[in-house]
């Protein structure tokens, strides 16, 4: 769509590009390119820097500190940020909790939490999945039972990303055990320093610790921490899906990754010849780029339909399956280009600083894309329902 940017958009593009060029710390850039995991303080520092520029909560309305950009500008911003190998730096607070509080929160909740999210004073994690409830989220069992003015929460949350760094968790809990499974679910905010919370690390197959299991034993949570009404949790979770839509496809990240793959394939040699001259590699890179184009224009179409006021439907399932397929294809290509350069595992010395040192970690972790957030199989069930006339669920 570059063909249609107007002069002001182009000026904006130059401004963003220049800023990221000047302000992205080289170490963050290196980690973004190689796929090495960022540490908490790096992320916080980077997010505060973006916030200082007014560029952290780009999807929020202006009244809450957002920049008030058109969709075109947000698109340009995302592309430039990714192209500069600047970390995405968006927290679950910014992408997920913020919009929920704006739509469902009390004035007090908004006034208290939104500025703290924007300034990165709180670190939020998401408590959705449970050991027994993966893609079948509605069968979750963590219970919040009224006890005076409080809830008493018991249960366990699984796959909680960065729970060990978090100060708060927003989570889905069961407040009623009767009726339709979905209707007994509520949306609750919990401070992580409350008594009865234990966080146990889960090391994933990339060798990293970002996931956790969170155990909640008689955790006392005041009722003012409830978002929306009791039993509204499922609706809130669904609402969130529509707000994840811009990020779900991951177009900007994929474009940046593809550009890096081309650079890598031009640099790596096989029999002394650049890998990019290999016929099979060229075909694969071309095919991946075309898949990415299809993803990008599908994303445009969904955004346009949403902007035109069409009800959010199963498009998010389509975008998720298309987007994760592209992401996984690219990470596969990445590891194929790296080949034996990616053999060193979690090395931090000389071997850990190479261009390909963490390609395998990224490839491993990329497999989660079709599991978390509703597995690929579940997304296709949703789409089948729509196709066969059952409507979106």
């Amino acid at each position: 769509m570059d063909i249609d940017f107007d002069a002001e958009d182009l000026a904006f593009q130059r401004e963003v590009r220049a800023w990221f060029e000047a302000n992205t710390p080289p170490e963050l850039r290196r980690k973004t390119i190689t796929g090495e995991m960022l540490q908490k303080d790096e992320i916080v520092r980077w997010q505060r820097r973006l916030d200082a520029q007014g560029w952290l909560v780009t999807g929020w309305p202006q009244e809450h500190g957002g920049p008030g950009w058109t969709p075109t500008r947000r698109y340009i911003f995302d592309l430039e940020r990714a192209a500069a190998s600047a970390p995405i730096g968006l927290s679950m607070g910014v992408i997920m909790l913020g919009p929920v509080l704006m739509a469902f929160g009390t004035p007090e909740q908004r006034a208290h939490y939104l500025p703290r999210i924007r300034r990165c004073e709180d670190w939020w994690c998401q408590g959705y999945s449970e050991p027994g409830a993966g893609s079948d989220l509605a069968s979750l069992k963590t219970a919040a039972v009224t006890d005076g003015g409080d809830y008493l929460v018991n249960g366990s949350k699984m796959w909680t990303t960065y729970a060990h760094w978090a100060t708060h968790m927003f989570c889905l809990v069961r407040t009623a055990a009767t009726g339709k499974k979905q209707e007994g679910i509520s949306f609750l905010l919990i401070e992580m320093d409350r008594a009865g919370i234990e966080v146990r690390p889960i090391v994933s197959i990339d060798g990293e610790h970002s996931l956790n299991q969170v155990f909640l034993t008689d955790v006392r949570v005041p009722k003012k921490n409830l978002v929306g009404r009791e039993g509204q949790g499922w609706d809130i979770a669904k609402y969130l899906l529509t707000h994840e839509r811009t990020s779900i496809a991951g177009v900007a990240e994929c474009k940046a990754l593809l550009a890096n793959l081309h650079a890598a394939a031009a640099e790596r040699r096989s029999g002394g010849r650049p890998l990019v001259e290999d016929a099979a590699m060229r075909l694969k890179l071309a095919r991946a780029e075309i898949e990415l184009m299809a993803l990008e224009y599908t994303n445009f179409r969904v955004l346009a339909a949403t902007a035109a006021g069409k009800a959010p439907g199963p498009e998010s399932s389509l975008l998720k399956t298309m987007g994760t397929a592209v992401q996984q294809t690219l990470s596969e290509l990445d590891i194929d280009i790296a080949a034996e350069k990616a053999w060193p595992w979690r090395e931090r010395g000389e071997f850990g600083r190479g261009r390909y040192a963490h390609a395998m970690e990224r490839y491993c972790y990329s497999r989660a894309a079709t599991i978390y957030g509703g597995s690929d199989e579940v997304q296709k069930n949703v789409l089948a329902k729509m196709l066969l006339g059952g409507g979106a669920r």
Partner: protein
Amino acid sequence: MCSPRCCSAAARAKANAMNFDLSEEQKMLRDAAQKFLRAEYGFDARNRIVASETGMSREHWRRFGEFGWLGVALPEAHGGFGGGMVETIQVAEPMGAALVVEPYLASAVLGAQAVARAGSPAQQAAWLPGLASGKLVLVLAHTEDDSGHQLAHVAARAAAERGGWVLSGRKSGVLGAPWADGFVVAARTAGAVHERRGISLFMVGAKTPGVQVAGYRVYDGSRAGDLLLDAVVLGRDALLGVEGEGLGLLEQLIDIGIVAACADALGAMGALLRKTVEYTGTRKQFDVPIASFQVIQHRLVDMFAAIEASRSLLLMAALHAEHPDAAARSRAASAAKAGIGERARFVAQQAVQLHGGVGMTEELDIGHYFRRLTLFCHLFGGSDHHLQRFAALRAAA
């Protein structure tokens, strides 16, 4: 029914970065085409046309002209609608959905655009009104036996003689050839068979002495032919565009031809999905509708996803069709052809598979869509050709 002529060309909004909706006029164009074709170009009517002596309905063709579809992208001065690629694909998609065999792509897109883009005022006046109204058929004859889809591979030759031209050579796989009143023929006025320079285009009347058409039925129900040019004597004014510089126009024509063909394919793919969803919802095996099997459901979803991705690629290519940078335009066209080609094959194969035995019968339309989409896969070169063209254009950029 609303003819697109009733809408001013100026009123049509250009798609912009975040505007992917069609204008009202564009929607009306598409809806009108769908409506007419569903009513007047049903599967039985279509089969009668295919089985007829000539294999095409001049009557329908003239109606298409009346509705403005044949001149949708031709200048208003010559009886056209003054639209562009976005308008063209609004017409092409319903034509694919209705299995139209008349030469929309061959004549209304390729032939007409050749003249519209490079014709002299006299050539335009001679051809465009007739093309827009459906009176004339003009097709592009550019491929030869060994050329594959390397456009620069032209062996036919034109020699400048006594103030005119003498053309000799063979052209093969010419879409719509048996119906053509004229041909736009690519021939070499200079250079060796592979050279980019030296290719010229000529307007050749079908009845010109020395022109011989060996026509045949194509498996999609249309007609095509080989063209034998045996010392065909042409006037000086037969040259289309600049002598020796025809390749650029040829590339442009093929790129827009690809976009139109992709829209046609999308129409056929959409029809197949609709029919397959319907069939699997009613056909019972093991006492339940086969659409109740999860494997069938996910297959339908894969078809749906393939079609949505194809629509996105089509849109992308249509928006790049007049891009000032020829490489960007060609990359977009090749991306669409490669990406939609692979998906068209998948959707066609799965539609037959999910229809089972009846999908294998000539009586049902499923197999006819299957053949149309197979032809699409090879038109202007297959997916692999365009993947490699796409890669080469990136490497060259």
